[in-house]
């Protein structure tokens, strides 16, 4: 009974890493901790998924870089097909982009490979308790700031015009014909026509009226004229 209870209280773990030495080291590290039971080891992504689905461990520790299916893919699959399994990802990338991607895929903890050994043990405990864990120096705040940074900035289409295109936009808005612009800028009329159609495309304009309306709105030509 006690043994049963003991067993129930044990945290079952599956280890997935393509390096045998690393797996060995981690197993020693984890089994030294009372209440942890490493029930399976996988050498690649596919095996990790199969083992996890078969053994349904409490925790899956998976390396980010693995052959066949990388860690992120394994996480995505497991969080969909075995949502009860908590996943800890081991990574050498301290980049927030990776952390964010891992968290979005359903990872419970992101542990850096070069952090201290008991950081992983701590992470298993945290995850077992239903909390999220990130190895220092990673932090939720850093993640948030990254999300902010990665957000699409509003890009003014006018900014995407080249200087030549801006010149031609100004001249065209003032009513010059392609031939006149060509003479003025010492270009061939064909070149002018190419620039003009490029700038219309970039600005999402279709007709000469569109162009003049845009120029008025941007203040390229004065309203009162």
């Amino acid at each position: 009974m006690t043994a049963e209870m003991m067993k129930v209280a044990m945290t079952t773990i599956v280890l997935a890493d393509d390096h045998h030495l690393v797996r060995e080291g981690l197993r020693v590290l984890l089994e030294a901790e009372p209440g942890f039971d490493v029930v399976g080891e996988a050498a690649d992504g596919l095996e990790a998924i199969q083992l996890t689905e078969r053994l349904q461990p409490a925790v899956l520790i998976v390396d980010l870089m693995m052959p066949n299916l990388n860690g992120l893919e394994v996480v995505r699959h497991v969080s969909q097909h075995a949502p009860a399994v908590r996943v800890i990802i081991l990574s050498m990338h301290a980049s927030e982009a990776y952390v964010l991607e891992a968290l979005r895929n359903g990872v419970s903890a992101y542990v850096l490979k070069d952090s201290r050994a008991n950081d992983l043990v701590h992470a298993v405990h945290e995850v077992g308790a239903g909390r999220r864990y990130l190895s220092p120096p990673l932090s939720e705040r850093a993640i948030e700031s990254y999300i902010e940074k990665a957000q699409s900035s509003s890009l003014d289409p006018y900014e995407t015009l080249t200087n030549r295109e801006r010149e031609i936009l100004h001249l065209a808005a003032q009513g010059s014909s392609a031939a006149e612009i060509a003479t003025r800028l010492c270009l061939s009329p064909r070149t002018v026509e190419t620039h003009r159609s490029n700038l219309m495309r970039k600005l999402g304009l279709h007709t000469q009226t569109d162009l003049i309306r845009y120029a008025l709105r941007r203040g390229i030509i004065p309203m009162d004229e």
Partner: protein
Amino acid sequence: MKKLGRLLALRVALLYLAGAGLWILLSDRLLALLVADVALLAALQTWKGWGFVLVTAGLLYLILATVFAEREAFSQQLEAHARRQEAVATLRQYALSHAALATVLNEAVVLVAITLEVEYSAVFEQSADGTGLVLCSGVGWRNGLVGTARVPAQADTLIGAVLHQPEPVVLADLPTHAPDPLLVEQGIASSLAIVIVGREQPFGVLTAHTQQPRRFTSDERRFLQAVASVLASAISRENAEAELRQQKTLLECQSEASLDGILAVSPERRILACNQRFVTMWGLPPTVLATHSAERLLQRAVEQVAAPQQFVAEIEALYASPNRTSNEEILLKDGRIFDRYSAPITSAHQDYYGRVWYYRDVTEMRQTQDAYRNLVEHSLQGFAIYQDSRIVFANPAMASITGYRIDEMLALTPDELDALIYPADWEQAQVCLQGRCHRNGTPSSCDYRILRKDGAIRWLAVASIGVAYRGRPAIQVAYVDMTERKHAEASLKRRNQELAALNMVTEAVSLFLNLPDVLATLRVLLADHFQVAAGSIFIYHEAEDQLSLELAWGLPDDLVEQMRWLPVAHAHNAQVVREQTPLSTFDIAADVPGLARLLAADAARPHADWCCYLGVPLLAQGETQGVVDMLWQRTTPLSAEQISLFATLGQQVGTAIQHARLYEEVRAGRRQLRALSHRLVEVQEVERQTLAHELHEEIGQVLSGLSLSLELVGRLPADQVAGRLEHAQGLVNELMLRVRALSLDLRPPMLDDLGLLATLLWYFEHYTARSGIQVQFWHTGIEGRFAPEIETALYRMVQEALANVTRYAGVATVAVRLWASDERISVHVEDAGCGFDPAAALQSNSASGLAAMRERTLLLGGTLEVEAAPGQGCCLMVELPLK
């Protein structure tokens, strides 16, 4: 006879009277003398009386018996004669009944055999050559003899002899003749034979034969003669009929074979004869012909002719005057034309038997004649007929060719006619017209010129042939006006020469692939072959819209210098460039003022009298490649043909120039490619060098330190081991950092794992940390993933651009704009640094990597632009298609 008979009977009766009276007188007296006894005398007287009666009765019997016997024989003779007569009559009748001659002959021999009661009867027909006779009909002859047996015709045989005898011949009468083997064979003893008279020679012999010797009475001979004569007449009639038939057939054949429809009419207006063609021509039904009435026939004809009244009147007039002949043409309603000839039918003795009408259908002939007349009248070819060196016939076309009216031509004298021929061509014309001597020979032909009445010269193609005209030899001549063709030929010849020249130009310029050679060839051709006094060849640069003067000849040096680099907007030949059409003028000052000014500015002014200018665009597939200016001191403007020739030349040369330029581009591309590969190898080497240095110097050093530390652990006292291990741990951590940094520098795995945006964000952070330059980053629509080659290319190009900024720009911030739509993704990297000359940077293949970036862009079908100028910063713009 009767009288003679009576006298004879009277004489007999008188003799009897006298004799009997004397007897009675004398016997009574004698008796009385001798016997006196009266009784006895009386008795004797009674006996004597009885004796007398007895003798008288005997005599009477003898007389009467003889008389009756004679009468009976006579009557028999008479009967036989009558039978023979009847037989002859039957035969004659038979012969007259138009029976065939063979049947008549058969009938004759049968009649002869029966009538003469002979075993054999025959007709021997003399063969045509007169050498023998054939048994052609016979009775009693052995089978197979009739029709085949032959007897000789010599006069020493019986039958041969008969041939030459007019009278019937009895064999017995001619004992001197040799016995005929045919007759001997049959055992014939007696023969009666007679000749059957023919037309020119005896037809043959009619014979009767018996095996028993027999005498033939004269009556029998006459009978045979009569039969022979019937046969002769039958034969003669047969011959006459055959002849008649033959003549009739001949006449009918002649009449039917005639091309004319022939009708003969008696004076009583009855149809005597009419041939089938006549019936067909007039479409006469048999019913009309059956009436034999010429009136009915006329009615039918009147319905068909175009002028019925005139037709009837003419016919009546002809019937009214039997001696007249006439010849008219008759038009029918259906358009046919009949030629009619009518003449009286008279015998040698001028007896009038009626009138004969000949009709001939001449429609086709008239149509052909009309067609020929039309042909000649309306022909564009001139036709004339010469006789005795004068024109006797000419058609209207001939009049329009020579300018003389037809009547004027007919009036021309031989000398005047000769004067029409252009003097220089006179001999040639004579040679051609000598053909007149050879009638029906091959036509002779030649070309020569004539002088029209108005003095103009026309080229004629003339063909002449000898013909007969109005029964006398003449020359028929056909004329075709060749003047236009001769002119066209001349202009074609000129055009051909020009084309040959053009061909030469094309060939010459196509030989070269490099521009200077092409242009030099063009110059040589224009200056030497086309005698262009002065000129210049410009190449058009579309991007700059400028002309560069590549070659010039015949122009002053300072002028050439001024034109070395001409913006099209200010060029004198701008019109040629823009409108892509040749510009030709005979007045430079008015039409090409720019050039006139340039020429006028020339101090020496040796070319002031140049007035003729031609500017020709050098075109290739509708694009201007350049312009050629040409100048002449001509007295006449260039012709349209010459201008078009030069224009064509411009197109040929334009294509050659385009090829040369493309070739140049290809060569430059190859050069660039070579440089690029070279740089690739270089970069690779640099990378390897860095890597090797990194591995050896940095990582190797740390590893050595680690190795040393771990070695020391074994030797150190226990209390120092922990410190040493910590040091070793530190080394390992450092090592891990270095290796990771190295790996990331080579290629961040993030680009594959997380995509472009995450990688760029990471990279900018890394970049700022290393270079101290802030990156201002704007982006739209790039959160998703793109094709790996696009992501890699953009990452590398941004990396390269930022590296350049670090290296050259000397700025504290750089702006990166990255945006994507469905079709394309674009990036701008802009700095406000010291800038550079992009053309030079692209050309030099320098370490800036600009050329490599352009290659990457081109590979992905995108565009790369650099807006930069020394001192004005730089903006690198890359656009890649996403489809």
